[in-house]
């Protein structure tokens, strides 16, 4: 009986260790690819403007947009929360759901969005240069698909927030109109959000 217990214990102590090591290699919270980044052509565009309006070009060049981007990210996350099925959180978790991440690789997570299909969540952070970064554990293929869907949803809402902020900065009163129209390419219905800026 004692022999059996020892054997069993030895077996149990080995198997989970092997299993954990294998999965630890495969599942990892990572910084995913991003699309929202300041383009290299910005300096060319500013130079062109400086030729005609140096004061305006300097104002744009000196503007610190990182806090504005962070605010737009925060607002976009809040807006997504209103979407059915999306929950907001401050942390994401790894594959096992045990380790919580408030930050990763020096990036502080501004907010995280979670759904039933992605219970561990996708964190959104902004780096020192103002680049939007998505952070998540994408171990399962189902999670990868959901991350892609959530990135698309986030990007649209972030673009709306950015446009609204910019129009407000340059003195427009901003209103948002959402309409559903037929997509001539697919024949399906699609949502179009119009941000209308009005100035006297």
């Amino acid at each position, binding site marked *: 009986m004692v022999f059996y217990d020892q054997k069993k214990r030895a077996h149990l102590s080995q198997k989970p260790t092997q299993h954990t090591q294998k999965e630890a290699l495969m599942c990892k919270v990572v910084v995913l690819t991003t699309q929202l980044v300041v383009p290299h052509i*910005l300096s060319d565009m500013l130079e062109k*403007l400086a030729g005609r309006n140096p004061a305006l070009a300097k104002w*744009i060049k000196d503007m610190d947009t990182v806090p504005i981007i962070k605010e*737009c990210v925060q607002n976009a996350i809040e807006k997504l929360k209103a979407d059915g099925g999306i929950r907001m959180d401050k942390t994401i978790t790894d594959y096992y759901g045990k380790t919580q991440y408030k930050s990763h690789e020096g990036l502080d997570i501004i907010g995280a969005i979670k759904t039933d299909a992605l219970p561990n969540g996708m964190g959104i952070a902004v780096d020192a240069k103002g680049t939007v970064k998505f952070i998540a554990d994408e171990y399962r293929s189902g999670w990868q698909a959901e991350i892609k869907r959530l990135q698309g949803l986030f990007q649209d809402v972030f673009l*709306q927030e*950015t446009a609204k902020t910019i129009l407000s900065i*340059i003195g*427009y009163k901003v209103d948002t109109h959402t309409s559903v129209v037929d997509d001539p390419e697919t024949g399906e219905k699609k949502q*179009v959000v119009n941000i209308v800026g009005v*100035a006297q």
Partner: protein
Amino acid sequence: MRKIVVSVEKGKLSVDFFEGFPGDTCSDEEEVIRLLLAKMGVRTDVQQSDSKSEAEVQSHAEREKHRA
């Protein structure tokens, strides 16, 4: 009254429908918006709506008038 419409759909942002902009101000305003969006990391497409084309035509006509 000046009016600008920015459309967002499927990850794409378009600055369009410039209304009430006299002369060169249409292109100037467009450039400022594009620059600020670019600084925020947002790529833009500026579409050619009728109202924007009209404003640019007026702008061109005004320049021609001043040149004459």
